[in-house]
């Protein structure tokens, strides 16, 4: 795969717009191979917040944030980063064993009647 040299970080300019910059965090990578993260995949960090101090800032933020299960969408919103960027950062953390995620597809178009009833009851209790 052709990639721009990492050390050359002047390939974009202001006209590239705000979306270009976040991709520099991921070294230009725009998707994570092998790890199937979706908008509503749940992830949680294994290290505690103190252990995050030694990590690179973007990873540390994710680890501190994910002390309880959060969806990819929530992490992206909290970090104010586009979803694809967050997926790449999460994939790095997953590969290093710092984050676990739900591998199976959590969303089903036909959940069983018990799940639907629980959703209905839950809404009524709000």
């Amino acid at each position, binding site marked *: *795969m052709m990639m721009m040299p990492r050390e050359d970080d002047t390939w974009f300019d202001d006209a590239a717009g705000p979306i270009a910059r976040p991709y520099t965090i991921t070294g230009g990578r725009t998707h994570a191979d092998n790890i199937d993260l979706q908008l509503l995949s749940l992830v949680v960090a294994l290290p505690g917040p103190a252990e995050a101090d030694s990590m690179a800032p973007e990873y540390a933020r994710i680890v501190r944030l994910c002390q309880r299960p959060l*969806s990819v969408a929530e992490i992206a919103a909290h970090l104010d980063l*586009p979803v694809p960027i967050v997926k790449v950062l999460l994939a790095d953390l997953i590969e290093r064993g710092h984050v676990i995620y739900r591998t199976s597809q959590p969303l089903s178009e036909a959940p069983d009647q018990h799940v*639907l009833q629980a959703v209905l009851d*839950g*809404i009524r209790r709000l």
Partner: protein
Amino acid sequence: MAFAGSEPRRNVSATVVKLLIAGGFGVGKTTMVGSVSEISPLRTEEAITQASAGIDDLTGVESKTTTTVALDFGRITINPELILYLFGTPGQDRFWFMWDELAQGALGAVVLADTRRLETCFPAVDFFERRGLPFVVGVNCFDNAYRYGTEEVRAALELDETVPILLCDARDRESTKQVLVVLMQQVMAQAALARR
């Protein structure tokens, strides 16, 4: 319990479900999400060139043509094993291609209608009808808006009589709850029919 141990807290096995809140731009989708969400509605951005076309590099022009679609959503933790997300669909027509992805795995949808601009919810009604996704129509009663009856709205939208229509106030928690309860009943009824 303040300290329940790390295991339950680090659990990612919860079932995740989602409902959609659709309708035209400015109809009150995010307001409706916020009225029942346990968190303030969050906004996340999907970068389109990457998500839709799978473009793998950012060598120049792509970065200028990248569009982001903002998605507003909320969360209701029903219990530690069941989390409901409410997603507002993008209101602008040019983001239609996002809908397939959003609708995937959704249990059902609320189509929020504004009687002053009823035509803005036609595309959403068409989309959910075609897809066979259970939906209800919530007629958001804006201040000063002329209030049509639900049957007038049904006729204007050419809605099947099996689709529930409710008058609602998207700002009001009880009103939104009522809409979502009727939606879930519709989802369950449709699921029961499909099992036969």
